[in-house]
Structure formats: structure tokens, C-alpha cells
């Protein structure tokens, strides 16, 4: 739960994505500032996940720009990666590393000090109520447990903006409450969250702003 590099604003300006003339994302604009919890809702095929990929610099838009404090967003840029932590689709974890191993690897490669690693990792595991799974391989987790483990990985690395694609999926009611609390804590600590959510009630309870896709519809 390390703080990342602070930012002023992330601006998506008229971005689109299309393949062979078929639109995957109609023109979309969005600005995110510190302390915001922006939930994106909308029907399937509205381009929500495509937008998240573009927003995090993992995909180039067909048109439009994404800038973070004036700098074009590209996932390969280290500065950008210290601000934006995406969880879009399943994390490509190692089949031969346990949950605890993954967290150590993530913590250390993001520059965590060696002595405090155990404390940070235990804290995030306990916060998400998955401490008991620390010695399991990813293949030994249920889909809901894996969802929480993946969330713990993005929470552990430094970031000032979490970008999540349907993190509530596969979670039971109690764990959705937990997710809601964790995201609120992030926003209270001046971080931001942009996430796609299909649970309208959860979205309304947690968000500071709701964006409905496709825009201009």
C-alpha cells in the first residue's frame, strides 16, 4: 500500500478506437484528478475495457490523446507506471510462485526496502482477508480468491491512480463491501480510482462520480 508519484490530472481527450472501420470505442473524453473515485458503467460492448487499456497506455488510440500532467501516457514510461496501477483482466502470474512469492517480487521490484517487505505484505494480505492463502499457488485459488490476490498485487505497488476492470466480479456480498471500503480508503488518502463496475448499487455507494458509456448516447 505504498504511495506513488502524485499527479495533477489525467486527461483523455476525444479518444477513439476502431478496427477495420468498426468502432470499438466511440469518441470519449474524461479527466481524473486526485481524490476522485470514478466509476464507469454501461452495457457490454460500450468500449469500457478498451478505454481502460488506452487510459493506462497499454493500447494506442485510433484518434485522440491521453496525457498525464501534459505527458503522453505510455505504459513503458517508468514515471507513468509509478502513477497508474492497472488491473485489467487477469494478472499474468507465475504458475510456480506462491501468492507470497508474487507479493515479495512485486514489492521488491517496485523498490520496497528489504526489511519492511514482510510487514507490508502481511498488511495487504490481512486487509483483503487472504492471509491464509499466502502459501498457495495461483492455480490453487478459487476465482474469487484469485481476484482478491490480484487486487492485493496492485494495491501493494506504488501508485496514485488505480485503474480496475470490474474488480467486484466473482466476489461475494461481504467481499464486495470489503472492496468498497478499500477503495474508499485509497481515495481518502488522496489517491484516485477509475473502475468499471456492473453493480449499480456498489457504484453509487462508492463513487464520487459515475460516467456512463458510451458518452453522448
Amino acid at each position, binding site marked *: 500500500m505504498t504511495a506513488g508519484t502524485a499527479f495533477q490530472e489525467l486527461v483523455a481527450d476525444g479518444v477513439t478506437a476502431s478496427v477495420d472501420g468498426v468502432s470499438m470505442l466511440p469518441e470519449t473524453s474524461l479527466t481524473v484528478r486526485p481524490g476522485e473515485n470514478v466509476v464507469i458503467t454501461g452495457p457490454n460492448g460500450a468500449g469500457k475495457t*478498451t478505454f481502460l487499456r488506452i487510459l493506462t497506455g497499454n493500447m494506442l488510440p485510433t484518434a485522440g490523446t491521453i496525457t498525464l500532467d501534459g505527458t503522453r501516457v505510455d505504459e*513503458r514510461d517508468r514515471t507513468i507506471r509509478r502513477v497508474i496501477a492497472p488491473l485489467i483482466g487477469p494478472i*499474468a502470474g507465475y504458475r510456480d510462485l506462491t501468492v507470497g512469492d508474487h507479493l*515479495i517480487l512485486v514489492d521488491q*521490484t517496485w*523498490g520496497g526496502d528489504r526489511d519492511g517487505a514482510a510487514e507490508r505484505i502481511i498488511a495487504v494480505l490481512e486487509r483483503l482477508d487472504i492471509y491464509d492463502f499466502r502459501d498457495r499457488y495461483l492455480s490453487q485459488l478459487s476465482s474469487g480468491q484469485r481476484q482478491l490476490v490480484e487486487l492485493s498485487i496492485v494495491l501493494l505497488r506504488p501508485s496514485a491512480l488505480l485503474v480496475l476492470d470490474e474488480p467486484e466480479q466473482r466476489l461475494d456480498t461481504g467481499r464486495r463491501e470489503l472492496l468498497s471500503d478499500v477503495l474508499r480508503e485509497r481515495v481518502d488518502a488522496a489517491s484516485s480510482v477509475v473502475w468499471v463496475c456492473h453493480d449499480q448499487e456498489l457504484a453509487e455507494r462508492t463513487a464520487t462520480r459515475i460516467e456512463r458509456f458510451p458518452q453522448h448516447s
Partner: protein
Amino acid sequence: MSVSPQAPTDDHRLAEAYHLRYRGEGTQLRSALFTAYVVGLFGVVYGVLASHYVFQTWPAARHRVQDHPLLCALAAVLLVAVVALLAGRAGRRRGPVVPEPGHLEFVSATDLPRALTLRDAWRSTCVVVAAGLLGLGIAVPGGLVMAGGSGWALVFGLLLALVGAPALLYAWLRGEAAGHAGGSSAAALLDSLPMSLLRTQSLMSDSVSSALVAGDTRRARAQAFNLRLRHTPLRIKALGRWGTTVGADIAGLRRLGWVSLGWLVVQIAAVVLAAIAPVVHSRSPLVLPVVLVLAHLTTSGLTRGLQHHAGTAGEPSILGIPWQAETVLHLAPVVALQFVVALVAAVATGVAVPLALTHAAALALALGAGQLLYVHKGPPPLALMGSGGGRGVGLLWVAHPTMAVALVALAGVLGPSEALLAALLLTSLAWSRTSSQFTPARPR
């Protein structure tokens, strides 16, 4: 080995089931006959030439066979016995009777005797294995005879193939039917194969084949070998950015236990072989390429981190290091090991130090670059596949990293500097391809 004849009504129903499934398409047996023809013909023609080349180039091997014919015959029989033993074990994962899934659903799922519905699949394997072993049984002694050896070697080779092929096939089938067998004849073993096992092996075989056609040898290997991880509560150590990444690779390899140890042993053996004085000073242009290709193939068992990294290119990385650093950290320990082993082997066998250094550097660079090309090769480009070459082009694409490594070894025949230059060029090409994999995706 033969399957007992069935009642005519069963044969008639079998023909109808075949018609329903294949509707004039070539059956498994027909394509097996063609494969056997190709394997037999090429095995004999090229095998005799290769064997002749070996016995001609290394007369000591020929003399040893001539001086100790009984011992060599015994060794050949022992080799066939070991292969039959291994076939028995392999049968549990992939037996000799694996019809394609459609055949299982339309033909084997009927109430016809299983020995009948699996007859063609079994005969197909028998034909291919027999052709292969006969080709080998003719090729190896044939080359010896051409190089001046005794003609009895050819007779022995043929006899061994004729006895060894049925023994191997039977052991393989017994392996497949292990735990289900209700008799010892081939027909009884075929009858005892349960549909669940056939379906599992058939689907696995299908997915391995499709992965190979797509040029994805890593997926093919993952499908074919169900690697078991040793469960250990020990975690990797927090060793900073670089140390933890390397430590994770080592931990991953350790958890595969004997499999990793096996890869390490054959890798070291191959690198040693590629660096010892007789190979470095060999006048044959084929020795170093063959040995280096072997080293390249065995390296892939030690680069699990690099393979994972390549497989996730284009996805958001969970690690806090740039892709360049991650690539180097996954590859550098293996390359360093290759360099040190090659250098020590070369110097210990009498290669001059400057030449040993250049040779070891070229070898390690070529093997490192070969791994980069291998892990980032992806499926064959559509432009290539659409060029009419079909499977041949696909095969070339799968093999191109290996061929690139062999080319560096061929450059080594010209001289150590040429080899180093070729290895550097290959490294630059491989790095450029790696770089292209880590660009943000474009909507396609």
C-alpha cells in the same frame, strides 16, 4: 499383434460409421501409410548417407564396431530395450492409439467392439513405427557397410528392427492400457481402453498439434507435460530489485525438482561438448552446428522466467522494472553459466586462452540470442502462411531460432572472430524483435 477378425455385420456397421465421420476424407490409416512411406524412404536414403559420413569421418567408431561386434550388438539390443521401457512409460501420457476427437465421438462411442473401432489407429501407429525402425535398422548398418564394414551388420540391423518394432509397440500399448488391461493380447488391450482416457489423450494430442502448427512450442510443451510443482512453504527472499527477480527464477526451477536438474545436466553437457578442443578444432563443418543446436534446445528448459515474460508481452506488467531489465535478469544468469562452462571446458581440454575466450563468448551470445528469438517468435506471420507453403513454412518458422544458432556455429567454422561477429549480429536482431514485442498494442 494382429486384431482378431470381427463378424461381417460389425464390419458393415464400422464402414457406415466411417462414412458418417469421414465422408470421403482421408482416414488416419491412409495418412499413416503416406507418413510411413516418407519416413522409410528418407530414413533409408538420408540415414545411410549420414551414417556413412559418421563412420567415414571417425574411423575409430568403425574400427570399434568391427573389433567388438558382439558387444556392439548387445548395446544395440539394450538400446531398443530401454526405448521400449520408455515407450511403456510414455504410453500413460500419450499412447499409440489416439484417434482424433471426431473419430472417438462418431466411431468409438458406438457399441461396436473397441478393438474394431480402434483398429485403424493402432495399425497406423504400427505402420509408422515399423517403417521408422526399419529405416533406422537399414540406415545405420548400411552406412557402416558402405564405409567398409561387414555385411552382417545389415542383416543384424534388419533383424533387430523386425523384432524391436513389435516389442516397442506392445510396450507402448501396454503403457496406455496400464491400470485398465483385461488381457495381454493387443486386441484385449485395445478393448480395455476406456473412453475417458482416449478422449483425454486425443484432446491433448490435438491441442499439442495445433500449438505446434501455430509455432507455439512452449504451449505445446506445457500441454504435453503436466509438470508437478513441489509444494514448499519456503518463500523467495527479499533481495532488492535485481536479486529478487533472479531468485524467483531459481525458486521456480527448484520447485520443478528433478525436471530442472535434468535440464541443467544436459545443458552443461551440451555446452561442454560444444567447447572442448576436439569440437573447436574439428575440421568437419557439421560437428559444431549439431552440438550448438543441442545446447540451444536444452537452454529452453532453464529460461522459465524469460518464457513467462515473453508470453505476457503486451499485458500490463506487475513488476516495477522495465522490460529491458527484466529480459536481461531472466537471461543473464543462464548466459553467464554457459560462458563460464564453455570457457572452463575449452581451456581444460587444451584450447588456447584467447581462442577459448572468443569461442565461449560467441557460444554464450548465440545461445542467449537464440532464446530471445525462440521465446518471442510467436505464431508464423500470416503473410508467410498465406504464401502457399502451408505446413512447410510453419515448420520453418518454428525452427528458425534453431537455424539461426546453427548459422552462428557455421560462421565459427570460418574462424572465431567470424563466429563472434555473427553472434553479435544475431543478438542485435533478437533484441530488436524483443523490443518490438513491448510496444503498446494497436487496435487490430
